[in-house]
């Protein structure tokens, strides 16, 4: 029983981690709390769903399609909403409010087009079989979720630490003016960061949509609250922290639902969030605040 719960928690936690990764990447590099991020999650899931329905795409086609579409939406959204604010060096509150307004408008717009009913991936989109060993059941979908998360996380780390683009992104995160002096095109680098984080959000949307097999426009909003908790618990802008906090939260939620009450599950994220802010405001794994000064 417990080991089965742990497996389920790990699966849920992987999607939280994947979702939070893109969110924390935006904050870590661009210094904005971009609430439109939740929309990338919804749009990713929806594009995958549309691909599955309209030309029978399977998960291996639909997942990258959803991710890329969400990445493109993220680039456009950031460019339209935040370019002006960035130029005016507006504070974090302005970008928070602008993206809050925008994301609510975007959800509504999406609801106009696809309705608010819960929609499902067609039968045969993924292999629904499962494997069992020593009493633990893991479905192929669950393995896919954990596997995809691991692969995407590894790719992101390689990209940030080992490539020229990664070097440019880290330079921008640390000192924008100095990055310009190196000949780095900041506008393009910002677009690349938006694309990457949009892709991560979109991929998380497809995988969560798959996990619960329920897709509707406001799924991103629900997820966003969790994402917020995860990146604050993990330390704003801290990629490793977001991963650990995401998995931790998933496991704790499943255990709470299993051993206490499924109604109590909702309280877990925010209880930890409040405790974190009381006792360790830089996040569980955050380094000293100086890093973000």
């Amino acid at each position: 029983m417990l080991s089965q719960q742990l497996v389920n928690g790990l699966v849920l936690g992987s999607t939280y981690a994947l979702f939070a990764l893109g969110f924390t990447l935006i904050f870590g590099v661009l210094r904005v709390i971009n609430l439109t991020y939740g929309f990338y999650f919804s749009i990713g899931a929806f594009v995958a769903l549309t691909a599955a329905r309209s030309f029978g795409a399977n998960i291996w086609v639909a997942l990258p399609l959803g991710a890329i579409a969400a990445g493109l939406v993220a680039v456009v959204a950031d460019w339209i909403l935040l370019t002006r604010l960035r130029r005016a060096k507006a504070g974090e509150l302005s970008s928070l409010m602008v993206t809050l307004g925008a994301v609510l408008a975007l959800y509504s717009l999406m609801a106009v087009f696809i309705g608010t009913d819960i929609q499902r991936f067609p039968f045969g989109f993924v292999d629904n079989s499962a494997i069992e060993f020593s009493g633990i059941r893991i479905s192929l979908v669950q393995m896919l979720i954990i596997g995809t998360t691991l692969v995407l996380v590894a790719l992101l780390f390689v990209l940030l630490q080992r490539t020229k683009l990664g070097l440019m992104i880290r330079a921008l995160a640390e000192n924008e003016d100095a990055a310009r002096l190196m000949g780095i095109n900041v506008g393009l680098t910002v677009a690349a960061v938006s694309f990457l984080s949009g892709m991560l959000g979109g991929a998380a949307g497809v995988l969560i949509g798959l996990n619960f097999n329920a897709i509707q426009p406001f799924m991103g909003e629900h997820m966003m609250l969790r994402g917020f908790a995860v990146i604050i618990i993990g330390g704003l802008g801290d990629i490793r922290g977001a991963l650990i906090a995401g998995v931790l939260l998933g496991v704790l939620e499943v255990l709470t639902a299993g051993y206490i009450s499924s109604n109590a599950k909702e309280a877990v994220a925010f209880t930890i969030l409040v405790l974190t802010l009381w006792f360790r405001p830089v996040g569980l794994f955050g380094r000293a605040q100086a890093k973000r000064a």
Partner: protein
Amino acid sequence: MSALLEVTGLHLGYGRTTAVKGIDLSVPVGGVVCLIGANGAGKTTTMRGLAGLLKPTAGSIRFEGADITGTAAHRIARLGIRQVPEGRQVFAEMTVDENLHLGGLQAPDSAEFAKRRDLVLERFPRLRERLSQQAGLLSGGEQQMLAMGRALMGAPRLLLLDEPSMGLAPLFVEEIFRIIGDLKREGTTILLVEQNAQAALEIADYAYVLESGVITLHGPGPEIADNPRVAAAYLGGH
């Protein structure tokens, strides 16, 4: 000698305040020109304007004969105008080697990149010893060397040095000026902003004195150094 950089009537400001009020200056190919002045005279503002970090409100900047007024900072860097900014601005969380990589991002190919890196490490042996160390953990003098090495990785046609000796121990100040002297002998074109007017005037072919955003005096280095007003105001009196 023809002018590599030609600045005419340059105005720069932040919001409503104008910090630089119509300056003219010229840097010849292979020359070392210095800009001296008190705190707040507009030296760093001028340097930020030349690097493209601040858009001029009036006037023009020409580089190799082409108008680059209002050009974006990353384009200016790619043209070969490389700045060592005030306060060094190294990427503190990255390693020394990564900082050098960032300086050499625009190198045309890996052979050229490797060549530049070798030259920089030859010039700054201390950096070679600390390649994998985090830049933020270096001493001030070492960070200054890293900032200079990083700029040299861009193979500058014009090197802008903003207060390279500020806040450094005397031994490092001496070393930094020795390196500037080396660069001068090798034919690097340099625009140097310094509070250490004495050392700057010794090395410069030509000097400008900036006061409250206006050039009040200019001429060959030794001539400026001998000017009684400069001696009293910037060289601690004679």
